[in-house]
């Protein structure tokens, strides 16, 4: 599983052309430096937290099955990483995504003496349902699900839904004309913040 994840990362390194990401080398650093989320080169952070945990959560929330795509297949992580860098995303939203990983792993270590990634599928489900029990945890999971659904069904120009895999799975006929890369929504009009509805 972990190997697959790493090879996926290597794959992404080639695929993803965006230059920046919001990296965090460790959870400790996350908590002490939340306010200074710096921009690093994407390739230097791709194998690091919080993305490893997030990828694992995404796959749990949207698992691959025999005839249907999972989170990795729909490029859910690439989509999330790309979209939260778009100019209209509130810094508080980025912070929530990172914070949630901290809460999850704290709880996981407290209950199982393991990080989330190391848990069995059954324990993952239990702990995510516990996280959902808190207001902030529910918001965090809801936000991840929102991005997952967008990765599944938004236009491939936004980094998810590669070759329309999500549309094909659900037999969804997309409209036309489709946006090209120079006409992504945040390039229309003035850049601005938005608050995503979770």
């Amino acid at each position, binding site marked *: 599983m972990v190997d697959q994840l790493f090879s996926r990362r290597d794959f992404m390194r080639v695929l993803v052309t965006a230059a920046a990401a919001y990296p965090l080398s460790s959870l400790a650093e996350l908590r002490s430096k939340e306010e200074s989320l710096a921009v690093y080169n994407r390739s230097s952070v791709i194998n690091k937290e919080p993305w490893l945990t997030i990828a694992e959560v995404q796959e749990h929330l949207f698992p691959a099955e025999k005839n249907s795509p999972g989170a990795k297949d729909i490029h859910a992580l690439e989509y999330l990483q790309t979209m939260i860098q778009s100019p209209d995303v509130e810094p508080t939203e980025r912070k929530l995504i990172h914070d949630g990983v901290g809460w999850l792993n704290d709880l996981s270590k407290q209950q199982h003496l393991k990080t989330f990634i190391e848990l069995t599928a059954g324990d993952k489900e239990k702990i995510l349902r516990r996280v959902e029990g808190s207001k902030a945890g529910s918001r965090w999971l809801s936000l991840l699900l929102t991005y997952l659904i967008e990765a599944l*069904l938004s236009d491939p120009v936004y980094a998810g839904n590669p070759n329309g895999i999500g549309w094909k799975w659900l037999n969804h006929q997309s409209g036309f004309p489709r946006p090209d890369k120079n006409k992504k929504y945040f390039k229309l009009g003035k850049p601005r913040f938005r608050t995503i509805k979770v």
Partner: protein
Amino acid sequence: MSQDYDVCIIGSGAGGGPVALELAKAGKSVLILEKGPWLTEKDYFKDELACCVRSVYTPQLKDEKHVIEEQYQDNSWQGESTEESGWDFWNGNVVGGSSNFMSGFFYRLKEKDFRLLSEFGKIEGANIADWPISYADLEPYYAKVETEVGISGRVQQHQYLEPRSTKDFPYSPTIEHPIVHRIDKACEQLGFTSLTTPRAILPKADMGRNGCEYSGFCGSYGCSSGAKGSSRAALLNRAIKTGNCKILPNAKVVKLESNHQGNVSAVKYFDENNNKKSVTAKTYVVACQAIETSRLLLSSTGAKHPNGLGNNYNQLGKNLLFSAGGSGTGEMTYSKLDKVSAEQLKIRGPFVNRGLQDWYFINDKKMGGKAKGGIIDFLLRHPNAISKAMSLKWDDNNKLVWGKELKRQLKSTFNDSQDLRFEVFNDWLPTDNCFVSLDEKVKDKWGSPVAKIRIGYHEHDLKVGEYLSQKALKVLKKMGADNIRYSVSGSPPANLVAGGCRFGNDIKTSVLDANCKVHDVDNLYVTDGSFMPTGGSVPYTWTIYANSFRVADIIKKRL
């Protein structure tokens, strides 16, 4: 003193477009100030994120918001900023306004709609008023909109057909979805008169615009072919071609200055770089959509207008209208149909141009005899995939749905049925509990007080909505739909808004005169839906277009 322009129009939607085109064609110099950006066919794609998830065409609520006042159980009215609630009251702040994003269901009002008070009498708690003009005054302009904006349809005789000066629509109906045969059959069995809904969509190329491409994503999306009769595609592009009309996008008007005679002397606005600017004209036209029009006039105080332009009798912002009614859905389950029928229902692209007007006027003991009713329109569930999927995110117990269960529900929602919806439109009665004022505390990013909207409704609206919904449900049942559900509520649809500057013959009870000129201001007109004292029971856009063409003729004669 010479003025910069003959006419300055604030707002470029359905209210502004006709005035701009007509006056530019007449050789007058026209300036349009539009708050939003100037997007064209080259910017509009079938991109759900852009149209419907990220609110690209409307302001961010942290920058510009409203305060919505709702009534609480203790009968008090309490306001909440839309930045807090997320309840977005904006519609299309771009060149062409929200007409870019309409579905283009186009209806005329009927003769009796112009004299609702005389025809149906008073209703306790409602401020119903007759219009100062008649259907006959507006009819030539309804006809003009058919050709100028481009309306497709077919005239069918029925008991409530409006008198027409032309025989039929200039364009035949858009291609229709196979489900219309099922609707027609069910209606015939029920004794209902199924009618073809006219639409402001060109079925073929004309007037420099392409015909509809039948992508299946129309409402909420900007049109990439130009077939949809937005103010921008149908009117403003032509106004620009005359060489007499200039559009200034990203120009936010904050105030109309008035002089010691009480007439407008200048428009103050912020340009795209947030520099404060001023412009003058001989005549000023406000068309910012009802809520923002009232807000702008309320903000435009002056020596002769201490409470806002046109508000010396405390009428401005009052009698705001939405559209009352409800909506419902039924699922046409594929597994219950033969294969060919199921495949037909899956088709995406053509329109469901069907509606019912049998109860536009009601004569039924259940409704106390004669009463004003409304219309029912049928449509397919919007094909937006993300919003469809998002509706599955929470279960009935407010728990998140994920994993295989989410995937199973997704598969089913996208593949098991074609969902047929209906929408009921009936009059939103004007009352003292539905109006626009300025909020005393909340301001927008330019420091101007935002509009506070009290959204009270009249109980009668729900009664009519329920009556009509029951008729629509019969159609869904007859068609064999599953899982039929509906709702009728007093919650206002923010995209169907009018009133606030009602027109009339008495300055003490109206803001505008019969020409849509502010009573006590010589050079100020309002041409969006604000003028309507009652709204009729149809979407407003055709009437707004028609009235704006009417007022354009009036202004033309004066200039």
